[in-house]
Every structure is written in structure tokens, then in C-alpha cells.
């Protein structure tokens, strides 16, 4: 098992899918130059400008054109550059891509992938740092993936490209250079399956994308205090692996959810609600939901830090979760 980076995982996945299926193509701004993060490096030279397409700065038309191209039988991979810019293409994603199949009674299929880099990254400010996964998870018709590891950057992108549903694929900007073990096979990952990133018995923490790494660090801090934490990396947010989460919490009887996105009305609330509905009377302590305060991301370091949920406050929450019910 060799090591590769998150960015290599993504690049290799797309290259292999372009190789495997002539209907697959990519479109977005500056792809010929490799994309903002070099995640497309070398692909246009290898596959040609007709299949790795440099588009005008027209997010709505990038997405709308992908819908039309998918309807006639191609499999477009859409690059949004920053997740924030997908907001310029919300009609095309929500009202067109996600609705087409249903609205026309199953006549059409829209097998496209929308790559949306998310998350806080190097003082990029309020319009280049958002994590809007709860918006997309809320829309019937969409599948939502959020890899946390290089292996999943590879496997989940392949799965997204092969899926016949429209998939929103969220890649975290801070993870591009992360190195990790490459998967043992070139098979796509299984959509809808979570991963136990660290087994434990005292409390379950559920996270996805970059927050998985924060949760792992927090679990180490908690371990030093004698608390054995189970960390679940969801990997796919719709459908999410409720089975894995419920069986874990059924064992640990304690739940913490940690997300980088704004906490209020975020996807973490969905997990807490689902677990509470199913297992509420069996929980030892009340579930805890962690996320950013309801503020935009600031530019200056301390302001940016005010937004982040770091290992220390996650660890504190884990310790609170294992404390007595009264203290929780």
C-alpha cells in the first residue's frame, strides 16, 4: 500500500474514469491550467480540450450545460472552483439537475458530478470558505459525498462519476496536501457507507471531511484522560450510514457530532435528531452538537479562529458527554 495525497487521489480518479468511459468529461474554469488547486493538472494535455474543457466564467451555464449534456447521454464532471460559487448555479443544480428525473416521470437521467471545494483555508474570507453541505443534503434527488482521506478522495470521486444520480462531491481545500495510504484496489468506494476511523467504547463522535481529523485529535486528548472514543467518518452525507451510527451509539450510549459548518440548522442536527428519535431513551447523556457559530468566516487569523471548531473544544465536549447526566 503506497501513500498518495488527497489531490493525487482526486486527479487519479478522474484520469482513470476519463480513460475508462468516453462519455465522461470535465468542465469548468481554468482546467487547462490544472484548476485552482492543480487537481486537474495534466488532464487536458492528456485527454484534449474537448473532454477537459475550459469554460467561460458562467457558473450557471457550467451547471446548466452539464444538465443538458447529461440528458443526451454524457457524464459531465463539473468544477465549481469554490463551493461558494455553486450558489451562482443553484437553479441549475436544485431545480434542474435534482428535479429532472422526477419531474419528467423518469424519462431523463442526470448523471453529473459537481465538485465543490469547501472549508476554511488560509484566510480566504467569507466568500471562499463556506461548508454548505446541509443545503445540498436537503434537496431530494442529490447524493452528497465528503471525503476526509486521500483514499476516499479517490474512491468516492470514482463512485460519484459512475453513479447515475447527480452527485455533489465536497472536497476540503485544507486536505489537498494530506498524505495517506492509497486504497488497495482501483474500485470505487461504496456510497452510503461510513468508516470507523477509530474504534472506542465510551462515546461516539460523528464527523466528515476535515472535521474527522479534528475529531481524531480530540479523541487522542480524551484518551489521555482515560476516555475511549469511537470516531465515525461518514464519508457520504446522503445517504448517510445511519446503521453504523445507530449501532455505535447503541453501544456507547453517548453522541457528539462535530462539523466545520455553521452549527445551527446544519447536517449535525439531522444526525442528533435521528439518533434521539431512535435511541433517546437509551442515551446516558444528552447528545452534543458542535459546529461554527452563526457568523461568516473572517479574514484575520483570530477572527478565522473564532469560526473553527478545534480539537480542544471537541475534546471538552467528549469529556462532558461522558460526565454524569446532571453535568451534561
Amino acid at each position, binding site marked *: 500500500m503506497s501513500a498518495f495525497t488527497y489531490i493525487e487521489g482526486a486527479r487519479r480518479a478522474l484520469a482513470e474514469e476519463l480513460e475508462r468511459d468516453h462519455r465522461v468529461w470535465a468542465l469548468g474554469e481554468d482546467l487547462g491550467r490544472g484548476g485552482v488547486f492543480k487537481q486537474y493538472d495534466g488532464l487536458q494535455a492528456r485527454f484534449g480540450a474537448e473532454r477537459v474543457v475550459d469554460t467561460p466564467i458562467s457558473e450557471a451555464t457550467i451547471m446548466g450545460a452539464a444538465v443538458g*449534456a447529461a440528458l*443526451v447521454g454524457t457524464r459531465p464532471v463539473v468544477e465549481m472552483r469554490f463551493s461558494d460559487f455553486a450558489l451562482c448555479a443553484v437553479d441549475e443544480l436544485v*431545480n434542474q439537475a435534482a428535479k429532472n428525473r422526477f419531474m419528467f416521470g423518469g424519462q431523463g437521467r442526470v448523471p453529473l458530478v459537481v465538485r465543490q471545494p469547501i472549508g476554511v483555508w488560509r484566510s480566504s474570507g467569507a466568500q471562499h470558505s463556506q461548508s454548505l453541505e446541509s443545503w445540498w443534503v436537503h434537496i431530494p434527488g442529490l447524493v452528497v459525498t465528503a471525503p476526509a482521506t486521500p483514499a476516499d478522495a479517490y474512491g468516492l470521486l470514482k463512485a460519484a462519476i459512475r453513479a447515475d444520480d447527480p452527485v455533489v462531491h465536497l472536497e476540503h481545500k485544507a486536505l489537498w496536501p494530506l498524505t495517506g495510504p492509497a486504497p488497495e484496489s482501483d474500485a470505487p468506494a461504496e456510497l452510503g457507507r461510513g468508516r470507523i476511523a477509530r474504534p472506542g467504547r465510551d462515546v461516539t463522535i460523528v464527523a466528515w471531511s476535515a472535521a474527522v481529523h479534528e475529531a481524531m485529535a480530540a479523541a487522542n486528548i480524551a484518551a489521555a484522560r482515560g476516555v475511549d472514543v469511537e470516531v465515525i467518518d461518514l464519508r457520504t452525507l446522503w445517504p448517510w450510514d445511519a*446503521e453504523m451510527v445507530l449501532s455505535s451509539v*447503541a453501544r456507547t450510549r453517548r453522541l457528539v457530532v462535530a462539523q466545520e459548518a455553521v452549527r445551527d440548522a446544519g447536517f449535525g442536527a439531522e444526525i442528533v435528531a435521528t439518533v434521539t*428519535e431512535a435511541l433517546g431513551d437509551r442515551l446516558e447523556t444528552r447528545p452534543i452538537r458542535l459546529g461554527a457559530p452563526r457568523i461568516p468566516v473572517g479574514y484575520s487569523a483570530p477572527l478565522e479562529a473564532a469560526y473553527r471548531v478545534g480539537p480542544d473544544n471537541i475534546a471538552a465536549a467528549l469529556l462532558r458527554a461522558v460526565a454524569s447526566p446532571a453535568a451534561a
Partner: protein
Amino acid sequence: MTQPADTAPPATDNGRRRRLIDHHATMWRIRAFERAAEDGLAAGHVNGAVHMSIGQEAVPTGVAAHLITEDVIASTHRGHGHSIAKGADLNGMMLELFGRAGGACAGKGGSMHIADFKVGMLGANGVVGAGLPIAVGAAQGLRLLGRAAIAVCYFGDGAANRGPFLESLNWAAVFKLPVLFVCEDNNWSATTRTATMSAGPGIAARSEALGVPALSIDGNDVEAVDEAAGRLIGLIRGGSGPRLLHARTYRLKGHTVTDAAPYRPADEVAARWEDDPIARNAAELKALGLDDDEIAAIEVAETARIAASVTAALAAPLPDTAAAFDDVQDIGRPRPGAEQGQAWSTHGAMGGIWALDRGTQL
């Protein structure tokens, strides 16, 4: 009706007569369909917003005469005419309007989302301007797959004030895509006169400025539409890139069936009825030697055909409620019985709320 591509308007008088008779039939098919929709709404069988194109039938009729089944069209909220002219199944359309099982969109679409993918009609759209990028992408996809077909995009004069118009024309010109943009300029954007909120010299000028050559024509003259569409589509099929056809027409009815359109001066509407494209074509047929009975027979035949589809729709059952859960998505698809608030069982039924279809998708 879809016909072989590159059917040039015939030079002979006889050929011309034949062609105008066909156009007459298509236009009546559209009008009779829409009148049936109007009646269906009044009778409570048809629901929702129904946008009629009465008075605008010459545009899709003349354009679609140059399209083959493999060509695709993206349509608007006013899509019955586009659909019928492209050869959509009339019974399927009527069942859909009546909300019945077996409708073109399985009862999920209705009038505003009418579609027939089998004949390349990729759907009416509830979002003004949304069809524009879909059409350019369809053209790009067809080219990537090595298909010779083209895409046609219908849109209204109001839609030309939305961003997708600018973005899509620019895109089509940059990539030299095989797209015909057809602007049905009926003067009105819902209840507002489009001219009162549109800057500059108009749609054709906007199009030219974006590098898409445009042609403005009398869209109530079906022969003029036929001729112009033939010319532009010929160029597009020859690889010359996108073109725009600006067809001046008029919406004789309200914005929707239930809109009496009191905001329009009665004399304006009366004058426009004088310019009814069907009546104009009838006069042309008369000049070509058809007698009144022959012309009326076309209307009678098309009306009867539509009446039959109404009868079939009334006899058809409503869809089963469970169908509301179909065709949402495969991966993580909803299941009937997973309603809001329903507690999960942790004893064996975990994960039963949505289907993962593990293994079948990848």
C-alpha cells in the same frame, strides 16, 4: 411533425400547397390541444398553471418542420406547441395534463413540465430562461458523442433579460455549438409589457453583439418561419455555429388560462386577432385554390384527434400514491412509509428508511 432533415421548402406550387396544408394541420393540432386544456381546467380535470400559446403556433410549426427526431429541444413554461410540433405523443400529453397514470411524465409534471424524451423534447421548464444552458449543453454533449443532431432552444422575450440568455449565447458562440435559439417575442412578460423593462435595441442586436448571428421575422407567417428556420438550421448543420431566430408574434390569451389579461387594451388584442397565424395560413391556402370545406376539414380532423385523447384521459386511472417515491434518485432513494416523525426501530429495521442499492450502481 418531425420530418427528414434538410427538407427545403419545395419550389413547386404543389409542393408549397402540401407544405402549408401540413403546417395548417400542425397549428390546429396545437390550438385544439390547448382549447381542450382550457376546457379541462374549467371542468376541474386539469390543474395548476396552464400557459397557452394560442396565437403563437406558427413558430414551433415552422421550426420543427426542419428537425429530425434525434434533434433535441429545450422548451419554456409555454411548451405545448413546441412539444406537439416536435412530434410528442398526444395521448401521453393529455394524460399528463389530466394527472393520470400513463401520462408523459407519469403525473409528475403537468402542463408546465410537459416532455417527451423519445422525440427529443427535453422538457418544458418552470424557470424562465432555464432551458438556455440546458440546450447548449445538450448540443455540446451531442458533439462529444459524435452525433450529427442539433439542439433548439425556445425562450420568450422576457427571458432575454435574465443572465442565462447572456451566458448561454456567449457559451454557444465560444464553442461554436450546433444550437438554434428561437425567441418567441410575444410582447409580454407575464403581465408586464417587455419593452417597458428592456434596455437597448432588442434581442437580435443583443444576440449579434454576442457573436450569434440573428434574423428577425414575422413569426405569425408560418411560411416565413419555415423558410428562415430552414436557412438557419441548414447553416447550423453545416457547422457554422449557433444562430438566433427572433420571431415576432403575440400571445392572444392571458399569461395563464385563468388570467383574463385586463391589463391589455382591448383594441390591441382585437387587432392582433386579425393577425391570427392560423387564419392567415387559411387565407394563403385559399389563394392556392383550396376551398373552404377542404380547409375546415383540417380543423375538424385535428379537433377530433384531440377529442379522442381527452376521452382516453378521462377514462384513465389516477396514479398510485406510491409513485410519488419513484424516480427521485437511486442512491439513497426514499421509501414509502418513511414519513416525517416516524421513529426508527433499532431492532432489525435500521437503515430501512432509504435504499442504498449497494452494488447495483457502481
